[in-house]
C-alpha cells in the first residue's frame, strides 16, 4: 500500500519533470528558430550560406553590414532583453503571488527608463553612463518602494498601490524630459515610452550579456526556495526558508535583470507580464523554475519584432506589438482573477 502510494507520487514527479524538460527544449528550439529568422529576414534576402559566411567574419559587400551591424545586434538585444524580462517577471509574479505584479506595473521599469531618458536627452551622456544611470534609478525606485511598503507587515496590496504611485511620479519625469528635449532627440527617446530594438549597437549590449550570464544562475539557485515562498510567508518560514534573505536576493536579481534590459531596449510592454503565466501553463503548475518563462519572453520579443518589422506598412517598434498582443490577455486575466477572488 505504502509502496503503491510512493510509486504513484514518484511517477507523477517523473511525468512533471519530463514535461518541464520537453517544454523547455521546445521553447529553446523555437527561440533559436526565431533568432535565425531575425538574421535571415530583412530588406534584402541573402542566401543562408552568405549569412553564415558574413557571421564568420568574411567580408561580403552589403551582406556583412546588413547582418553584422544591423541584424545581429537587433537579434541579440531581443533575445537577451526578452529573456531578462521573462525571468524578472516570473520571479516577481511567483514571489508576490500575483500574476499582475510585474516590474512594469510596480514601477521598476519606469524608474529605469526615467534615468535613461534623463541621461540621453538632457545630459547627452555616452552609453555606459546611460546604463549605469538606468540601473541605478531602477534599483532606487525598487528600494524606495520597499522602504515605503515595509512600514509594518509586508502586504502585496500595499506594494502594488505604492508602486502605482511611484510609477506615476516617474512617468511624469519621462514626460517632462520628452517635452524639454529637442526635436532631434525625440525619436531616440520615444523608445523609452514603448520599447524598441531599432538601432541597437553591439557595444551597448555587453553589460546586458554579462548581467544575464551572471544573474540567471543566481536566480535559478534560489528557485527552490521560491517555490516554498509561493506557499506563503508563514509556511515558507516554517519550512526553514530565510524568507527575507531569499526575497532580497531574488528581488535584487530580478530588478537588475529588468533594469539592464530596460536600459538596452526600453520598457517592452507586457513581456515580463505575459511570459510567466503562459510558461507556467505550458509547464504545468507547481513548478517555479523561471527558465521557461525567460525563453518564452525571448521568443515573444523576437516574434513581435518580426511582426512589427514585416507585417504592416509602417514599421512598428516591438513594444507596440507586444502591447497590443498583451492587452487583451491582461484584461482576460484580470476578469478571471476577480471572478475567482484572488484578492
Amino acid at each position: 500500500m505504502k509502496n503503491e502510494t510512493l510509486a504513484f507520487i514518484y511517477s507523477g514527479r517523473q511525468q512533471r519533470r519530463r514535461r518541464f524538460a520537453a517544454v523547455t527544449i521546445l521553447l529553446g528550439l523555437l527561440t533559436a528558430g526565431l533568432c535565425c529568422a531575425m538574421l535571415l529576414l530583412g530588406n534584402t534576402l541573402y542566401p543562408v550560406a552568405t549569412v553564415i559566411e558574413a557571421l564568420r567574419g568574411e567580408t561580403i559587400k552589403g551582406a556583412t553590414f546588413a547582418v553584422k551591424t544591423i541584424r545581429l545586434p537587433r537579434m541579440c538585444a531581443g533575445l537577451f532583453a526578452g529573456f531578462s524580462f521573462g525571468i524578472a517577471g516570473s520571479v516577481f509574479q511567483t514571489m508576490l503571488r500575483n500574476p499582475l505584479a510585474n516590474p512594469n506595473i510596480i514601477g521598476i521599469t519606469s524608474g529605469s527608463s526615467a534615468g535613461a531618458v534623463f541621461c540621453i536627452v538632457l545630459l547627452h551622456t555616452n552609453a555606459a553612463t546611460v546604463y549605469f544611470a538606468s540601473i541605478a534609478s531602477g534599483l532606487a525606485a525598487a528600494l524606495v518602494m520597499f522602504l515605503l511598503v515595509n512600514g509594518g507587515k509586508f502586504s502585496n496590496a500595499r506594494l502594488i498601490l505604492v508602486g502605482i504611485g511611484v510609477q506615476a511620479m516617474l512617468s511624469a519625469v519621462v514626460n517632462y524630459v520628452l517635452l524639454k528635449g529637442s526635436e532631434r532627440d525625440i525619436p531616440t527617446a520615444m523608445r523609452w515610452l514603448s520599447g524598441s530594438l531599432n538601432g541597437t549597437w553591439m557595444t551597448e549590449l555587453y553589460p546586458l550579456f554579462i548581467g544575464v550570464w551572471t544573474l540567471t544562475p543566481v536566480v535559478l539557485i534560489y528557485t527552490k526556495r521560491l517555490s516554498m515562498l509561493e506557499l506563503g510567508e508563514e509556511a515558507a518560514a516554517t519550512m526553514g526558508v530565510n524568507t527575507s534573505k531569499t526575497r532580497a536576493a531574488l528581488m535584487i536579481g530580478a530588478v537588475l535583470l529588468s533594469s539592464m534590459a530596460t536600459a538596452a531596449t526600453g520598457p517592452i510592454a507586457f513581456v515580463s507580464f505575459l511570459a510567466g503565466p503562459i510558461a507556467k501553463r505550458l509547464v504545468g503548475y507547481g513548478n517555479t523554475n523561471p527558465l521557461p518563462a525567460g525563453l518564452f519572453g525571448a521568443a515573444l520579443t523576437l516574434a513581435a519584432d518580426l511582426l512589427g518589422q514585416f507585417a504592416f506598412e509602417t514599421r512598428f517598434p516591438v513594444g507596440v506589438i507586444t502591447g497590443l498582443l498583451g492587452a487583451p490577455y491582461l484584461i482576460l486575466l484580470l476578469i478571471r482573477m476577480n471572478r475567482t477572488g484572488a484578492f
Partner: protein
Amino acid sequence: MSKSGFNGGERDVPLLPKRLAPVLFAFLLLLLFSVAASLSLGSRTSSLQELKDGLFHPAINTYGANVVRKRISRTVFSLCVGSALGVSGSLMQAVTRNPIADPSILGVNTGAALFVVCGIAFFQITTALQYIGAALAGAMITAVFVYGVGSMGRGGATPIKLALAGAATSAALSSAVSAILLPRSYVMDQYRFWQVGSVGSATWAGVAAFLPFLAIGLLIAVFSSAALNALALGDEAATGLGVRTGLLRLVSAFGGVLLCAATTALAGPIGFIGLLAPHVTRLFLGADLRYTIPASALSGAVFLTIADVIGRLLTYPGELEVGIVTAFVGAPVLILAARRAKVCT
C-alpha cells in the same frame, strides 16, 4: 447648536461641521492668494501697480499691465479645471466608496486620451467641443469598463482591485495610443504637448467651452450630495433611507466622468488633484459630502492654481507643466493613503 441637533427626532437645524466657517474662510483666503500669485508671478514678475493697472484700469496700456491681462484667462481656466477635478474626485470616491478613486488612477484619463488621439488622427477634429466629445466618450467607456472589471468577484470594488484594473487598462490603452501615434508624426507633435497636462495655453474660447460642462457637473454633484451621504452607509441602508441607489450611482458617476473628461480634453490629463483635494478637505471638514463637495471644488481650484504657479517658478524663466507638478505632489499622497492599513484588505 450642532451638538444638540438630534433631539427626540426633531432635527430642525442641519448638523454643521464644527469648523465650517474658519475652514471656508481659510480656503477663500488661499484662493485669493493663489489667484494673486498666478496673476503676478511668472517669467516676468509683475509689481502691485501693474497688477492694479491690468485689472482695474483698462485704459492703461503699459507692457506690464498687458502681461497681467494675458494671465487672467490662464488663471480663470486653472480655477475652473481645478474645481472640476476636485469635485470629480469627490464624486468618484463617493460613488465607488473607495478612498483612492481618481480619474488618473482609474485609467479614465488614458481612455479619454485614446479617443482624442483617434479623433485627431482619423476624423481631423479641431474645435474644443469636438475634443470634449471625443474625450467624454472615451472616458465613459473606460470608466464603465474599469469599474466593471474591478468590482467582479468577492468583496465588490476594493481599492486594490480597482487600482489594478485601472493601471492594467491604462497600460493597454497607452499601447494602442502609441500604435496610432507612431506612423503619424503630425499627431505625435500635437499629442506630445497635450499628454502632459497644462493650463498654459488657455484661451477664453476654451474657458467658454468648458463652463457648461463644469456647471452641469457641479449641479449634479450638489444635488446628489445628500443622497451620496446615505450611500456611504452601504447600499442596503441607503435603499432603506429611500435612495434609489442604481440611479444615484449612474447620475453621480456620469457627473464625475463628465467633469474629468472635459478637463482632460482641454488641458490634457492632470493627475492626482482629484485624489488630493477631497482628502485634504475631509481632513478639515469631516465626511459630510454636502459640505465637502463644494469645499473640494474650492480646494481643487487652489491646489491646481498653486501647482501651476510653482511650475512657473521652479524652472524660471521657463515653466514646468502643471500635470508634472501635480504628479509629484499627488503621488506621495496616494502612497500615504496606501500605507494606511485600511486601504489594504
